[in-house]
């Protein structure tokens, strides 16, 4: 019996292919374009402690095999998210498919968001994602991703406050990302979500100005996949917790490559902007691959390239 189920710490998913936060909306927008039941899970667009209008346009610029995007975490804030958005999400996805992503400026803000989510929807979601890859107004960009002690304290406090599985999404653009990853591992999360989005720039040669309003922005798409691969490779050697890899996954082969490098699951991002049903195709492809290779599960392949 083929089994594509994937365990990430205490959380179990129907398959290892997740919709990445910020690239999958709230999932229900995709309902008429794909079969949502084929998603392992969807990490919803991050909800921040206060509403955010997002960055001023242009927000998207195309680069070879990808985009530079600078959205600025536009979201309506927790009140609207809990009252209006979540009921629609619950209609569109099953419990085991919903990961709520939160971001704050301080540990207290993260904890409050996690507790509110847990109290209101704890029985109806699979896991929480602490988004520490986002901008931080109070302590500077990526504070909880570049300071090992800050990351440790954040996780420890959240874990003691909620019983839901917790994933930690961090920014690997800092030189000490392996040191931070060790601290995250020690603090104990259910999975580490790697955010493999190096910064880039595009100039519009007609206007002679930067192509996006925020000047610089993260590069997403297949263009950066080899960078993501190396980060996952290094992280796998450093930490014990399961790794969810994102960065340029477009096909089942890409997902498999990340798994061989050490990812237990993958997040699909900007590929969905081009093919809204891409996750379904990736899962179909992995299942066909298992059939062809007579594999009962994909677990044995996680990190296989290291052995």
């Amino acid at each position: 019996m083929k089994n594509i189920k994937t365990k990430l710490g205490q959380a179990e998913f129907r398959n290892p292919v997740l919709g990445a936060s910020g690239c999958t909306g709230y999932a229900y927008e995709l309902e008429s374009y794909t079969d949502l039941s084929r998603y392992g899970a969807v990490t919803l667009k991050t909800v921040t402690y206060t509403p955010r209008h997002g960055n001023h346009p242009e927000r998207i610029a195309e680069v070879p095999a990808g985009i530079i995007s600078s959205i600025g975490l536009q979201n309506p804030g927790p009140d609207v998210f809990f009252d209006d958005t979540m009921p629609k999400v619950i209609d569109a996805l099953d419990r085991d498919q919903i990961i709520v992503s939160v971001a704050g400026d301080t540990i207290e803000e993260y904890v409050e968001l996690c507790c509110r989510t847990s109290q209101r929807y704890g029985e109806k979601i699979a896991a929480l994602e602490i988004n520490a890859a986002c901008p931080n107004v109070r302590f500077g960009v990526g504070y909880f991703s570049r300071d090992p002690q800050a990351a440790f304290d954040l996780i420890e406090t959240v874990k003691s406050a909620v019983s839901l599985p917790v994933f930690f999404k961090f920014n690997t653009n800092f030189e000490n990302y392996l040191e931070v990853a060790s601290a995250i591992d020690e603090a104990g999360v259910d999975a580490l979500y790697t955010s493999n989005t190096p910064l880039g720039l595009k100039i519009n040669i007609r206007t002679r100005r930067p192509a996006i309003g925020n000047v610089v922005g993260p590069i997403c798409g297949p263009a950066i996949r080899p960078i993501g691969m190396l980060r996952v490779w290094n992280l796998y050697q450093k930490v014990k917790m399961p790794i969810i890899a994102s960065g340029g996954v477009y096909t089942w082969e890409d997902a498999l490559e990340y798994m061989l490098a050490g990812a237990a699951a993958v997040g699909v991002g900007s590929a969905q902007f081009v093919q809204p049903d891409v996750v379904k195709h990736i899962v179909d492809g992995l299942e066909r691959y298992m059939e062809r290779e007579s594999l009962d599960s994909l677990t044995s392949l996680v990190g296989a390239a290291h052995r």
Partner: protein
Amino acid sequence: MLAKLIEFRSVTERDALYVFDCPELARAASPGQIVELKINDCLDPFLRRPLSIFDVEGDTFSLLVRTVGRGTEYMTRWKPGVEVDVLGPLGKGFSWSEKEETFALVGGGVGMASLNFLARRLLEQGKQVHLLFSPKRDSQLLNALPQPERMDISFAENRTALPAALNALLAKGIDRVFCCGPDGLMEIVAKTSMANNIPCQLSMERHMACGIGICLGCAIAIRTEQGLTYKKACKDGPVFEAEEVSFHEEH
């Protein structure tokens, strides 16, 4: 879904008309909506190209496309018979009430692309259509219109001459204005229409990625009672009421 290119025709040196056979899309489309075309099977260009529906006739839809970059350049190499991956129809198009009888359509350059289908629907309902086109030097674009004789067509030399030309048109008794063109032109049309207390809708353009509301890339600054907010050109638009669009204020 797949759309089969059945006709390709140059309209100007840099604009071409593409006609596709695609019954499902053609039957569902309404004026002002867009489609997202996949340019090729490779990763470059990476994104689909969002394009206004220029016309719908029976099982076919057409696009009037200006060659402005890699994606649209690639499109000019398509030959009739090619099957293209298309998403659509997408977004919220133009709207009007049955009671309104006389309409001004203001097209700025290749912004014309979203107005022809609208004109067709209005004419089918027996409405009067006045088309004001700017700038006059680009009027060759009107060669793409399938039924120009059924519209009253006038021109503005350029953007400076536009307010006077539009005022003259509005003085004829216009129930509603529809506009598509560069932001600068649309701002003039919005202001002039509002000054005359005539409702006006604008078809806005932004760099767009997904086209279905998941990326929040195509943000348009919109005035609401709670202040300024960003809405999605792909899903909340591309057509917005003139008074809600903010051309300069940003957060």
